[in-house]
């Protein structure tokens, strides 16, 4: 029952999901529409519980066990609760405030203000660190050890020069050559890889629907 019921559900839903693509009849279309717009949407939205719940549990355990850097877990939990409260009760649209005021004088702490001035800088800056790590890796690790590696680096150099307007100053044909590399040999290799990947995805999808692939059930009985 613990495994059979979910496997049965995934089979029925998978079959219907595929079947609905081919059938134009209104009753099937209507069921498909209700399934998508109501059932899948509500269940999909509630899946947020998994993510948020896991984060809260992880940090509470860290605090309980006084694991490494445990005081910072308070930051995460407090930030989560405060931003959720501001968002849930303060409203989304600054012009239509909710029951919680989100402005003191001219200082606004509306969820959109927090988003633009805290979330965006933090997320964007965290990813921008990759520029430095990439530069360091390029210096230390990229070596022309053989013909294939040299070919890779040559292609990369042509792309890097062709991607910036400076490339036109070296040769007016360089940007066009870079575009050719992308449009012809790169397209060929990526398409070949795509065929392999998609055949694999198709096989795995079938295995999931037919209950052969059961990794998504998780451990336990």
């Amino acid at each position, binding site marked *: 029952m613990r495994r059979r019921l979910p496997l049965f559900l995934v089979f029925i839903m998978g079959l219907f999901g595929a079947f609905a693509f081919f059938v134009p009849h209104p009753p099937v279309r209507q069921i498909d529409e209700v399934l998508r717009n109501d059932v899948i949407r509500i269940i999909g939205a509630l899946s947020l519980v998994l993510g948020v719940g896991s984060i809260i549990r992880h940090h509470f355990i860290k605090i309980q066990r006084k694991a490494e850097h445990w005081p910072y877990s308070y930051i995460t939990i407090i930030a989560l609760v405060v931003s959720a409260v501001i968002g849930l009760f303060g409203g989304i649209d600054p012009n239509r405030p909710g029951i919680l005021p989100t402005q003191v004088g001219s200082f606004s702490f509306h969820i959109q203000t927090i988003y633009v001035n805290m979330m965006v800088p933090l997320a964007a800056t965290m990813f921008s660190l990759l520029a430095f790590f990439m530069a360091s890796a390029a210096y230390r690790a990229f070596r022309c050890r053989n013909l294939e590696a040299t070919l890779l680096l040559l292609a990369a150099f042509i792309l890097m020069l062709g991607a910036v*307007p400076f490339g036109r100053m070296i040769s007016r044909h360089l940007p066009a050559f870079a575009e050719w590399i992308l449009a012809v040999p790169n397209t060929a290799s990526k398409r070949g890889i*795509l065929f392999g990947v998609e055949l694999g995805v198709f096989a795995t999808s079938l295995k999931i629907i037919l209950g052969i692939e059961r990794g998504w059930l998780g451990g336990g009985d």
Partner: protein
Amino acid sequence: MDWQRLQTIDRRWIYLVIWLVVMVPLIVPFPIKPKASPPVERLFNYIDTMPPDKALVVSFDYSPSTQPELQPMTVALLRHAFARGTRVGVLALDVTGLGLAEDALRQVTAEFNAHALTHEDSIINGEDYVFWGWSTPAITVMLGMGERITKVFPVDYYGQKTESLAITKYIKNYDDIGILVTVAASAIPRSWINLAQTQFGVRLGCGVTAVSAADFYPYLNSGQFTGMLAGMKGAAEYEQLVADKLKESGRDWRLRGKGTEAMSSQTAAHLAIMAFIILGNIAFFATRRRRK
């Protein structure tokens, strides 16, 4: 020269070089005018010649982590659409991209409304554009929009009932959309092809991070994407095309193009990275020869 020591140099010196090489050209830029590549031109030309009764839909499918690369694209797309008087629909498939969509719309509508003399010139929410907002999961949105968009988004981002908006009678589903441009940092453009284009035949364009741009060329080649903006370079090229178009129509407003602004730094950084790779290889081969 101590090649061995050069190979094991503290990485923070490399970080400092990158910082300076990117920062200085931003403060003291050298003039650069990007020239549009064929995928960018194709997208621009299609949007520029779209029938007037068709809408442009922009899907903000990215998060703040890739905002520097992708936000300039969306701003340029919105400027282009509003400059043409094309109706615009905006949605987001990434919940953390919602705020960026709101930010882009606020910025561009403010730019146009600052120069508007009449109501017709103004960009009005609900009449000239609609911000549907976000919903989940993506399959619900992509398939539902083919039937009736207001069923997928019963209220817009601002809480207004979408059925009551004036623009809704002109954008009911994909049939009313000239092109949908997905701006994404992940594989979502593929999902748009698989779900929306396969079943409903909607024309698609994409704006992607440079990391994934090379992977989408097969779809450009097959015609599944009409055009593509690749990274900040693509954004800069599109900004230039839009600026030229605005200038041609007597609206030389000199709007800020963050993509174009970045090209000096981008050039300098590319040259620096290439120099690092060459230097690293010279040091590697010199050290190897000495060992032999």
